[in-house]
């Protein structure tokens, strides 16, 4: 077989291709692939078919081989190839030929006859196979044969024609007859029942294979049930939880349609008509509203907070308030509650009562949206206590007066004024009973009592500063009396008298003043002797001004003093020169009612307090230096720190203002500790202390330390409230004074007593 094939190849390789195409053209009718598979599956049915199939197979295989050969070598096969083929045959069955010498002397292979026994493989060669190759059969039309078998015998043309037809008609059509001719054999092509069935199925577009169920039950390799333990560890695919885009698109289409009004809710036609008729009369409230200019500080209204667990009708138990919390909530004011509701638990939704705050809450929300200004405010989140200056504790600032040591009793009616003499030994007081009393400070013994007036109160007593003389000045109505205490030693007594009498030589001079019109001008004050009765008691000099004097303040040198008579109009403030018995009115007109006045403790400055302002004048340049505005409505008193740069002001509207003269016209610190008007305020001359007294019957002692450091602020520490004086007719402590050397303070009470506090 192998040899035959190879020779065939050798002889006519182009013809093979033709045959092949012919085969192909034939095969196409049946569908090459399908047919082959079917044939293979039925290979066991008949031996005839088998032979054909094998041939086709082998041809195919040869074709493939040949292609390979063509690639490797020329068309002419070598001997080796043949030898190989022989060897292979020999190796299989042993030599099946004998070598003879032919007529030309060449070797000749004489093959032994094939014995057609059962071992021989002649089932394929049952019928003579036409070996004409790829020659069209039409070439043999004029011959009775149609080709040659492999043995060189003529393959005779099968009978055909009318005679045959008749014969055939008479003969029963064999089973499987197709009327087709097998191109390979030229015989009628018979098809078996199975093949016919197959063809039918193909024609009917059915699955060719018998018994194939296209609708077989699904074998669930992957179950649809979700197992607790998934078979696959793969993460859940994203598509499972992504909303469908497609659906979203569809919904959006609908939404768009609804918005554009293309889809309308169904209404009965008659109702629709009615609606169209009565078109609603709506108007836009904000139609002409102007858009706010863009403001970065503007913020939109906050969204309402989403309800939390505690607003549930059945909150978890940890959100439920305890009894104490409920009580506390009920007791606090509604505005101060942290939450506007109390979480409550209902075991079923149908038990939840109606929400009674609903309307209120909505209303408030609306108010909030409508009224609340949405402006961003920069809030400083600072602990207020951290802003307070670190003040030392009062215990560290000792000594300061704490208790009453001595009470001075003797005045009838209230004590209006008091002063401690420069040596610190004696206290002078003046009161409503018109007397000036002198006391030994340390024992409380009354040393002297001088009745200056029977009906007018003594409004002010002040000692002349300086230890070179001991002179007390006392103001009773329009008069200023100067007295020298009797108990001082003769030298001092004489010196004091000399000081008082020194001005008598000048007294006439002051009366020479003339007005512009030439008339004699009334002098602002008359300086005279008070009369023998008073002179015997040590009152040596009297000065009378035009209006009642309320305040006396001495210049530090003891020669000048100023008096203030608030009712005195133009002449309310007067500066007197003791050594010349001269009185001057420095201000032609004062802007306001003069309350009190003081000399600066070291510089030639003069301070005048009107009801609301304190003006500071330079006495040398005669000009206004500055005006302080303590912010009080009615200044009652003020005192200048001995250092000269600070000033403390007391007012009838209960304010105590500390001014730094270098700093500002406004107070450095304002204190309102008294419930009633402040009557007097005084600095200690050496200790860093100051005190004020009030109509509530108390004194307050402050530590007021001023440092030389310009950068450091003065330290003001409230130290002690001294209570003891009784309030009589809404008047408490009228005046205070400090001891010149010790941290002791004396106070004059409206209850007719004075107290020394140590």
């Amino acid at each position, binding site marked *: 077989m192998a040899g035959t094939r190879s020779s065939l190849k050798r002889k006519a390789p182009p013809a093979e291709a033709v045959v092949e195409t012919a085969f192909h053209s034939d095969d196409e009718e049946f569908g090459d692939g399908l047919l082959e598979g079917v044939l293979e599956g039925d290979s066991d049915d008949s031996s005839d078919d088998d032979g054909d199939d094998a041939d086709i197979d082998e041809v195919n295989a040869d074709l493939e081989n040949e292609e390979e050969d063509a690639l490797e070598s020329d068309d002419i096969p070598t001997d080796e190839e043949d030898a190989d083929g022989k060897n292979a045959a020999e190796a299989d069955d042993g030599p099946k030929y004998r070598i003879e010498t032919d007529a030309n002397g060449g070797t000749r292979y004489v093959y032994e006859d094939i014995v057609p026994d059962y071992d021989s493989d002649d089932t394929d060669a049952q019928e003579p196979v036409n070996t004409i190759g790829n020659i069209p059969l039409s070439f043999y039309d004029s011959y009775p044969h149609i080709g040659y078998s492999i043995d060189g015998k003529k393959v005779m043309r099968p009978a055909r024609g009318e005679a045959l037809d008749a014969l055939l008609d008479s003969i029963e059509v064999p089973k499987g007859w197709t009327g087709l001719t097998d191109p390979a054999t030229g015989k009628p092509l018979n098809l078996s029942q199975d093949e016919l069935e197959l063809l039918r199925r193909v024609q009917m577009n059915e699955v060719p294979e018998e018994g194939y169920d296209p609708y077989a039950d699904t074998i669930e390799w992957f179950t649809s049930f979700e197992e607790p333990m998934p078979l696959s560890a793969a993460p859940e695919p994203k598509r499972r939880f992504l909303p469908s885009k497609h659906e979203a698109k569809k919904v959006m289409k609908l939404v768009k349609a609804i918005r554009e009004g293309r889809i309308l809710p169904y209404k009965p036609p008659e109702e629709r008509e009615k609606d169209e008729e009565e078109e609603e009369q709506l108007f836009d409230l904000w139609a002409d509203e102007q858009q706010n200019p863009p403001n970065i500080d503007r913020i939109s209204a906050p969204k309402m907070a989403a309800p939390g667990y505690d607003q549930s009708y059945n909150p978890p138990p940890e959100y439920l308030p305890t009894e104490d919390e409920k009580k506390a909530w009920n007791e606090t004011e509604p505005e101060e509650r942290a939450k506007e509701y109390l979480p409550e638990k209902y075991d079923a939704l149908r038990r939840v009562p109606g929400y009674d705050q609903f309307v209120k809450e909505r209303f408030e929300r609306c108010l909030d949206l409508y009224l609340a200004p949405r402006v961003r405010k920069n809030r400083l989140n600072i602990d207020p206590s951290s802003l307070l200056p670190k003040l030392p504790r009062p215990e560290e600032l000792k*000594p300061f007066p704490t*208790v*009453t*040591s*001595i*009470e001075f009793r003797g005045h009838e009616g209230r004590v209006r004024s008091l002063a401690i003499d420069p*040596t*610190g*030994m004696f206290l002078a007081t003046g009161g409503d009973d018109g007397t000036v009393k002198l006391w*030994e400070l*340390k*024992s*409380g*013994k009354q*040393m002297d009592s001088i009745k200056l007036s029977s009906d007018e109160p003594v409004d002010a007593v002040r000692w002349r500063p300086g230890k070179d003389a001991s002179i007390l000045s006392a103001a009773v109505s329009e008069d200023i009396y100067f007295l020298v205490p*009797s*108990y001082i*030693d*003769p*030298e*001092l*007594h*004489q010196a004091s*008298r000399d000081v008082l009498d020194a001005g008598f030589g000048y007294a006439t001079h002051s009366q020479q003043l003339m007005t512009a019109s030439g008339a004699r001008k009334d002098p602002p004050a008359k300086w005279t002797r008070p009369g023998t009765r008073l*002179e*015997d008691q040590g009152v040596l000099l009297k000065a009378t001004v035009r209006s009642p004097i309320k305040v006396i303040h001495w210049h530090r040198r003891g020669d000048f003093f100023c008096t203030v008579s608030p009712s005195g109009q133009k002449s309310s403030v007067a500066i007197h020169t003791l050594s010349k018995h001269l009185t001057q009115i420095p201000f032609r007109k004062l802007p306001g009612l003069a309350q009190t006045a003081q000399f600066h403790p070291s510089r030639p400055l003069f301070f005048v307090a009107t009801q609301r302002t304190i003006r500071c004048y330079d006495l040398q340049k005669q000009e206004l230096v500055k005006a302080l505005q303590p912010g009080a409505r009615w200044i009652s008193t003020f005192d200048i720190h001995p250092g000269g740069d600070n000033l403390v002001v007391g007012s009838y509207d209960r304010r105590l203002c500390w001014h730094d003269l270098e700093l500002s016209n406004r107070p450095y610190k304002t204190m309102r500790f008294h419930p009633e008007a402040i009557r007097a305020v005084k600095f200690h001359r050496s200790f860093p202390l100051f005190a004020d007294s009030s109509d509530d019957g108390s004194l307050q002692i402050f530590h007021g330390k001023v440092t030389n450091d310009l950068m450091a602020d003065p330290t003001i520490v409230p130290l002690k409230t001294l209570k*003891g004086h009784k309030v009589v007719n809404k008047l408490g402590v009228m005046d205070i004074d400090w001891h010149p*050397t*010790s941290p*002791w303070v004396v106070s004059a009470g409206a209850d007719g007593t004075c*107290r020394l506090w*140590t």
Partner: protein
Amino acid sequence: MAGMESQNLATEAQQVRVNFTSSEPDLQLPEGKSQLLVPGDIKRYGLSRVLNSGSMLNTSSPVPLDFLVNGTFLRGSLEDYLKENGLSFETTVTLQYVRSLIPPVYQGSFEHDDWITGIDVLSGGKQRLLTSSYDGLFRVWNASNQIIATSPSSSNGGHSAPVKAANFLSSSQIASAGMDRTIRLWKYTESDDFTGQLKPTLELYGHKGSIESMDIHTSSGRIVTASSDGGIGLWSTSKSSAPEAPASLLPGAGVNVSKKRKIASSAPQRGPLSIMQIHSSPASAAIFHPADSTVAYSASEDHTIRTMDLTTSLVVSTLTTAHPLMSLCSLPGISSALLAAGTTARHITLVDPRASATKTSVMTLRGHKNTVTSISASPENNYSLVSGSYDGTCRIWDLRSVRAGSKAEGGGSVSDAVYVIERESQRGKKRGDVPGRGCKVFGVVWDKQWGIVSGGEDKQVQINRGSGLLAN
């Protein structure tokens, strides 16, 4: 039996072991009897009874005893003491027993016309009391509440201003000083027990301020005074040794002094031996060293106590305290001499005047409610003193009773008053918010015979029993 005993213990108070000690030689316990088991609720009286019993001290007559526990007097029961101090009942309590303290019983009052500024007593042969007053007079009293002599008024050669101090130089000589800046010496004679005469012998001028305090040294005839002008004066009592008076300070020195102020003085006028202007503030007290007449101490409101050498009139040392000082008194002290200074800060500071002393303030006596104006040492022992204050009380202090001062008191050693003598004039009256209103005590003297004599604003001399107040 055992059960019954424990029941007894439960019902009765717990037993406390005590150890008795004493520093008094005549009251020593026999050997081996000092340890005792006493019930816890026993008080002073019970303990005193126990000690006076036959088995213990075996005294002929019972001696009332007081007990000091850890420096303080036992006032409640032992139990209370232990509880207060957080001590266990197991501890042995050491009780120092001393002769009992007897309260200073009120004995009588002498009515006066004006505030009494100072008191001096004369004891020994004749019992005389000398009081100075704000009315410018001083008076001599006998023990039966009668005024024997009154100093002349200013028009008759007496003081023209309140007398702040008056002292007996001897039984026949009196010195007085006051706000008229003079010291006057008087010859005092008695015709009988009820009448006496005062004759001025000398007027001493020199101070420019009121004389606040005076101390005398009898044997050397020296007077030291403290003045409110800050000066300390040293004076001689003899006319011959005293220098001439400074003319400018004499009355009438001023040209224009009114005639009423001119005082005809019959007595010779002399000046000081020396005036030491050493204080910047008023001097409040000056005293001699108890043993040395050439050394004096002065206290002042400028917070200082100065030691002066009188022969050279120089300040030897300066002790600075924390408060203005108003009175000064020297104490023998338990171990060394001390100075007691009363302050305006309502306490008494005990100061060691020796230059070698390490700290200024030895002890602080706290309890007064107002300025302490007068201090007098006990004549009987070296550890007690009496003080008079503006709060209207006299307080008796025992220096042996010491406790540690609290932080508010400034630490240090602090003692509290043993007894408080109130003013009899204020008995039954309502107390106001001002301590000692109307009854300030200006002077107090503790004398062996007179007892505790005090006087002040209530115009009364009050005498309290003074002997045996504090146990020896």
